């Protein structure tokens, strides 16, 4: 889990936050299979750590382009929820787009997610292919372009 550009710098990078190990493994596997470089976070704290390092460290501030092309995050996680992270990111400009996954598919959650600028919200259980299609649409895997 590093914020430094990997040697595979030409791959689109996805920051994945999901507390369920099996689910995370599944998502990571699918994204990698689709040609993305994936950084995994097991909870909200790690997600925040990644983003803090990315946004506040002077040495990475000048990085161009943003080290992550996309964030895929579960909403309900121990520590910090995906929604809180999204809300906190409003302070910063030029952020990577965020896709949220939730088991609480109620209207309030969707509305909050849209308000804080999530590009898409997926209700569990969802079809993995739909998520991958959305990911491709937002952040085309650069290795293919």
């Amino acid at each position: 889990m590093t914020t430094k550009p990997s040697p595979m710098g030409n791959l689109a990078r996805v920051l994945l936050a999901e507390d369920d190990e099996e689910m995370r493994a599944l998502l990571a596997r699918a994204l990698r299979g689709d040609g993305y470089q994936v950084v995994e976070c097991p909870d909200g704290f790690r997600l925040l750590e990644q983003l803090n390092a990315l946004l506040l460290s002077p040495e990475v501030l000048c990085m161009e382009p943003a080290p992550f092309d996309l964030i895929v995050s579960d909403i309900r996680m121990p520590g910090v929820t995906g929604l809180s992270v999204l809300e906190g990111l409003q302070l910063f400009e030029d952020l990577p787009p965020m896709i949220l996954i939730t088991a609480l598919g109620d209207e309030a959650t969707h509305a909050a997610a849209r308000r804080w600028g999530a590009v898409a919200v997926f209700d569990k259980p969802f079809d993995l292919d739909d998520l991958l299609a959305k990911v491709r649409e937002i952040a085309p895997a650069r290795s293919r372009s």
Partner: protein
Amino acid sequence: MKVAIQLVSVVMAGIVLLLAVEAYLSVRHETELYQTDMRHDAHLLGQAMKGPIADVWHARGAQRALELVGDANREEHVVRIRWVWLDAAPGDEFYPRVGLEKLGSAVRGREVSVDDRDEEGHRCLRTYVPVPVDPRRPGALELSESYSPLEAYRRVTIARKLGTMGVLLAGSGLAVVLLGTGLIARPLQRLIEKVRRVGQGDLSGPVFLGRKDEFGELASAVNTMCEQLADAREAARRETSARIAALEQLRHADRLATVGRLASGIAHELGTPLNVVWARAKLIRDGALGPAETRDSASIITSQSERMTTTIRQLLDFARRSPPEMTEVDLREVAHRTVELLAPLAHKQAVDLHVDAAEEPVMVRADSKRIDQAVTNLVVNAIQAMPRGGTVELGFARKPAPPPGKPVLASGPYLAVTVCDHGSGVAREDVPCLFEPFFTTKDVGEGTGLGLSIADDIIHEHGGWIEVTSEPGVGSCFSIYLPEHPGGNGKWPRPERRGVR
């Protein structure tokens, strides 16, 4: 009716007394008049006879005069006339009937009247009129008149008064009874019935007496009171139904909120494994995996299905519990049983389970199996709070009374079993949510999020409560407080657990 009778009795007694006094006075007055009359008659008769007797005595001798007295007796029947010597010896023919001692005045020449009794014992008036026939001896005419006519007159008068009184009493009594019944007893009876009905809660049917007196006013006041009572009752009823409706609404909202929380918890608990199952199954179906990965996926599907099954089973357990069976339970035994049961799990997680020594039994009233389950849940929770291992300490505590605001059954004392870990602790703001179904700070898969809510529910059912003290990074202490068994020895002045505050 009783009031009317009392009233009538008083009035009657008054009338009787009045009549009796009047009768007594009038009879006495008439008696006096009659007596005066008798004395006057005797006086007149005596004076009338005195002259001729004296004349005859002087002119024709004593014998002739005494004959004249005898003649007068033959003519006169009401008054008996005798000649007496006022110095005659007792037993003498001319000895006065009343005796000489009462006739001092007569000896000195004055007329005397004396009440006496005749030979048959009847009362009579004897009047002695001195007649100067012999300067040496005091002689007198004795005029005796019986009181019998007076007695007869008195008897008749008294009988007549009594008769009048009786008729008067009967008449006025009848009138008063009739009037009393109509004017007092009947309206009172109706008012009493009305008030009785009001007392039984029946406010209907106003009472109308059709009168403009105090009874009418009372009736209308009672009617007004009933109307006001009915209004107040109706208002209270409306208010109560409104309150019940509001409460029902609140309860409904509360139920909805609970259902919502449960639903979102279930969705979260089942959504993720279901997603994994779906995606893994799809991968297998699409033949996108190699043989090893296919096997892995299948085993992941199996474990995720088991996880979902466990969640559903616990939910069902949560919903389908029967009332607790209360017995005497020693919390020390509960602690030891739990430690024994969980030793393998603790060992796997490198956690030591330690139970404080307690010399005295810690007796509470509880359903042993339920308490086992609650304590087990707390200990499992403690073990899972220490992923890097450590020690979970079980101890005992006592409180003389429940803290204010706890919806408990007994006023105290309460005994507790405490479970303390040195794990990650819980953030202050999360403490109130700890017992909500599906609230969990653990990695998903470790707990179902129901353990603490089940424990809390069990303890609530027992009339106790669970107290939590926790500090992030230091650890948590959960204390299960239960009412002390009445037969308990009460020797629990032990200090609170020294665990993490």
